[in-house]
């Protein structure tokens, strides 16, 4: 068992770390305050290849594995949690599901332009009345001649305002009857696609989160992903990798919080001493680092197993649930090291505290992942 990163992984870690230090962290507060999308940063990240880490080389990507993706994710979110959304919308289902279930024409049309950053993507499955309970889905797609007609509403759709296409999973209705699900690639210019207002969120404020309305939305039949009726397959195919990347997101935020707390504790003087000299600070930070390392290893293991072909959902769920919980625990403790200043917006730890909460909510709440884990243990 070798826990060391290989030469390629170390090189990737170093290059994304340097990029984050120079380009991402300095503008993180501005992104959070204004919610502005930074086109120049997007272009630089595209040139770096961050939107095509998982895309195969033949489709314009770097063809790297999930461990590499986790490394890049951890490093980039240390600069700004919003970068999670940028990386996952490109590298996630919009690449992975199309690779697995797309026709060759779909792969050639969508993956290279996603990897190059020319296309921006979103993925729509959640609805106002259902989150983890997919069976409650109300959005329908009906085949009419050479196209599908979608009607319904999707909510909490990350980056929908910017997306050139939205991968959308709907109930598949034939002659008025439910025939399973269908996943469609809904291009932005499809008639009847309406993007609603941005949600005003607690964290990750630098990326939009929208409600999306499908009002007799017409999608060409050639945009169906996989087989109509089996649309949940492409929708769930990438869940493991998304959950693992959630783990990397949580680890990255937590590590950033620790590093900020260490630096602050060495500067802050109380009772004639640096607060890093107090044993309480030392113990707190030691506990935090140990937990983050454990979460990182769990995340990397899930990624490495996925790279070896083991897509066991339990591993992704354990990584996602544990890293999310550790992240919130660690960020809270690190903010406490800052005392009153940690509560002030000028200090990045305040933003990280708000960004961290989503790690326990998005892509399956902690509770849903505990259900998956306990089921796999035979606890029923």
């Amino acid at each position, binding site marked *: 068992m070798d826990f060391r990163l290989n030469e*390629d992984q170390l*090189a990737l870690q170093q290059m994304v770390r340097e*990029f984050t230090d120079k380009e991402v962290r300095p503008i993180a507060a501005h992104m959070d305050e204004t919610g502005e999308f930074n086109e120049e940063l997007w272009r630089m990240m595209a*040139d*770096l*290849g*961050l939107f095509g*880490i998982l895309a195969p080389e033949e489709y314009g990507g*770097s063809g*790297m594995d999930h461990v590499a993706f986790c490394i890049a994710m951890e490093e980039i979110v240390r600069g700004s949690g919003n970068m999670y959304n940028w990386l996952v919308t490109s590298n996630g289902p919009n690449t992975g599901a199309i690779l697995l279930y797309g026709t060759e024409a779909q792969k050639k049309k969508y993956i290279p332009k996603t990897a190059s950053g020319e296309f921006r993507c979103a993925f729509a499955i959640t609805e106002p009345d259902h989150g983890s309970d997919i069976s409650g889905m109300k959005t329908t797609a009906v085949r009419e001649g050479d196209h599908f007609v979608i009607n319904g509403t999707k909510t909490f759709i990350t980056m929908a305002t910017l997306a050139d296409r939205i991968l959308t999973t709907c109930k598949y209705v034939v002659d008025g009857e439910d025939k399973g699900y269908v996943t469609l690639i809904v291009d932005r210019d499809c008639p009847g696609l309406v993007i609603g207002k941005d949600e005003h969120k607690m964290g990750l404020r630098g990326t939009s989160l929208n409600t999306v309305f499908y009002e007799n939305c017409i999608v060409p039949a050639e945009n169906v992903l996989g087989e109509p009726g089996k649309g949940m397959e492409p929708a769930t195919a990438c869940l493991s990798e998304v959950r693992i990347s959630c783990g990397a997101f949580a680890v990255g935020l937590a590590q950033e919080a620790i590093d900020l707390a260490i630096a602050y504790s060495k500067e802050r003087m109380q009772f004639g001493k640096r607060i890093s000299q107090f044993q309480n600070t030392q113990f707190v930070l030691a506990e935090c680092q140990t937990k983050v390392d454990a979460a990182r290893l769990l995340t990397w293991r899930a990624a490495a197993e996925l790279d070896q072909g083991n897509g066991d959902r339990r591993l992704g769920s354990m990584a996602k649930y544990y890293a999310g919980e550790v992240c919130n625990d660690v960020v809270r403790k690190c903010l406490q090291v800052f005392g009153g200043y940690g509560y002030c917006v000028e200090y990045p730890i305040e933003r990280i505290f708000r960004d961290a909460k989503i790690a326990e909510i998005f892509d399956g709440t902690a509770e849903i992942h505990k259900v998956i884990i306990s089921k796999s243990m035979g606890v029923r």
Partner: protein
Amino acid sequence: MNILVCIKQVPDTTEIRIDPETNTLIREGVPAIVNTFDVFALEAAARIKDKNPDTNIVVVSMGPPNAVNALKECLAIAADKAYLISGRKFGGSDTLATSYILKNAVQKIEELEGYKFDVVFCGKQAIDGDTAQVGPELAEHLDYPQVTCALECEVNNGRLEVLKEGEDVNLLIGIKFPCVITFTKPGFDPRYASIKRKMAANRAEIPVLGDDAFPDIDTAMIGLKGSPTRVKKTFVPQRMKGGLIVDGETVKDSSLKLVQILSDKKVI
């Protein structure tokens, strides 16, 4: 178009400390980087390639075997091929000997690649030695025209137009091929290596040209023997103590105060 970029692996001088007892650089633990000005030269080459995609960019470095890491960094950023010049007989070379070896390297690489370089790009100086001599000396050895301290350049009507940094005004200079250009810090940041290029560079095999690759080289002109420069002493300049700020209500007040201080100390 064929461009050769000369680069040097140097210690990251922002991380360097001096041993106060021996007055020498503490090199342990100091990361090695591609000389900053050489990165600007590589970026200039990459910008030419952006506009002329059939451009070949070759990088060359003279240095110890681990200088392949700097060459790989250049491959990751923009270079198509790299050569390392590394031989025991080259050790101890000063700028004159180094530029002579590099001239031989230029010709050797041209022979191996089967084409002539249109331009040779260098950084204006290395951040560890700060001599700014190798580029100009290389031009003289090659008998090529040269422009130093270039900010940017562009291929135009079969020649190179170079914007040279001047003290008061910048100069736009047209220069015929083949030529040598040395670069200073431009007004833009060099590009980042892409992940894909970085991974390919990690796996690249870099040809090493050793002593035996240059059978006809004049051994009296290389290494310590061929180096007229002698470093007599290195020392750390004495640190200046904290300055004195002379302030007053008006410029006149502070000027008078300053004159009084200088006068008291018998400076004026």
